[in-house]
């Protein structure tokens, strides 16, 4: 019978039984950027029952070269990535339950956002957040698949807590990225699809419990120089690992009373995430700001341009200050315009 999933069910690794199993699974995808859009595309088309997509950002023109679900209108309208993705995904496969969430993941909300799922797929762009994902995944026994890409190279590995090494077994501390991010070193589209597609296939195997075919390697690709390297990590679990060895979740416990202020590397922006979630009235703010500068508003966020700075204000109180990488200046603009 010609159904939506007929080709996938003909594939012996999945079959009719596997297809039904996928339909009962929930996958959380962290990040809806380059890797994240490829990951969510695969999960939704493959017919995973429920897909949660979490991202803090909105679509910009420089995303369109590689972030496969977005178009020029999304960038023009400054749509939050998860909402732009949601509009595409719901007509790609209306059977899948989609949960788009405009959120910045912090130690405070990580456990509520990342649990209640069978698998976490990493579409993030920095190691700080990956160590937080690792803590939640190990603590709650949720498998996750790390992936990273920059320039023409990328790597991935699947982490099944207490079976494989976890991220902290491999890297005791978050690696410094030597300033090498997609915003500074650049990146080409094909490496994104390669890495994310490998992550997706490991994800499918894990969802289906196909142990015999699990990939035991951390793999590295350099597609411009034609290098592919597999590193066996299968017996590298460390007894003295803080996370999976001792149950100490140091990244999850990094909760302070202070708001979280992050300088967004290579983007000349600072992000301020309030310690307590707020409920801002964007329309009221727009009225207040309009005599002071140019204001653009959509259903999800407000952009307020004044001189060399732009404040991007989300309803829950999170603000991105564009035009500076100075946290102190960003904090003072926040206090001045949004208030404490």
């Amino acid at each position: 019978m010609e159904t939506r999933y007929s080709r996938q069910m003909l594939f012996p690794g999945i079959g009719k039984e596997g297809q039904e199993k996928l339909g009962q699974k929930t996958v959380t995808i962290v990040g809806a950027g380059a890797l994240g859009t490829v990951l969510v595309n695969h999960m939704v088309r493959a017919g995973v029952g429920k897909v949660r997509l979490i991202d803090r950002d909105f679509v910009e023109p420089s995303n369109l070269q590689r972030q496969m679900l977005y178009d020029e209108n999304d960038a023009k309208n400054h749509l939050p990535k998860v909402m732009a993705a949601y509009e595409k995904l719901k007509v790609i496969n209306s059977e899948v339950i989609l949960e788009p969430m405009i959120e910045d993941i912090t130690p405070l909300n990580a456990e509520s956002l990342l649990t209640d799922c069978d698998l976490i797929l990493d579409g993030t762009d920095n190691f700080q957040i990956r160590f937080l994902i690792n803590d939640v995944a190990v603590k709650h026994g949720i498998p996750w698949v790390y992936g990273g890409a920059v320039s023409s190279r990328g790597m991935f590995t699947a982490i099944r807590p207490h079976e494989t090494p976890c991220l902290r077994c491999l890297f005791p501390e978050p690696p410094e990225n030597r300033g090498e991010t997609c915003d500074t070193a650049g990146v080409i589209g094909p490496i994104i699809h390669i890495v994310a597609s490998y992550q997706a296939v490991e994800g499918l195997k894990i969802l289906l419990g196909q142990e015999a075919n699990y990939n035991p390697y951390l793999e590295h690709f350099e597609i411009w120089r034609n290098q592919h390297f597999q590193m066996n990590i299968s017996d590298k679990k460390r007894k003295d690992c803080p996370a999976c060895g001792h149950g100490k979740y140091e990244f999850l416990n990094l909760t302070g009373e202070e708001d979280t202020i992050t300088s967004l590397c290579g983007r000349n922006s600072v992000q301020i995430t309030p310690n307590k979630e707020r409920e801002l009235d964007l329309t009221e703010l727009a009225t207040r700001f309009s005599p002071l500068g140019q204001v653009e508003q959509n259903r999800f966020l407000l952009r307020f341009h004044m001189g060399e700075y732009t404040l991007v204000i989300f309803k829950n109180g999170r603000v991105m200050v564009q035009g500076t990488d100075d946290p102190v200046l960003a904090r003072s603009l926040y206090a001045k315009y949004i208030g404490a």
Partner: protein
Amino acid sequence: MITVLLFSYLAEEAGRDQIQLQEGELSIGELKEKLEMEYNLSPMDQVMAAINQEYVTNEEKIKRGDIIALIPPVSGG
């Protein structure tokens, strides 16, 4: 003799992606320090290492005939 494969910016900094060394007994950590000095490479303490395609830590000892890969972790996405 040991063979060292360099990846990513390490290859760019060294101007080559493969180095042969005559040394016998040394650890991965010592190898990293030696290469940093000789080829003026960025600090490598967080660079991943493999001996004969097995992940290893900085303490691991290298034997004659080993092939070592040095791969910087990839962050972006």
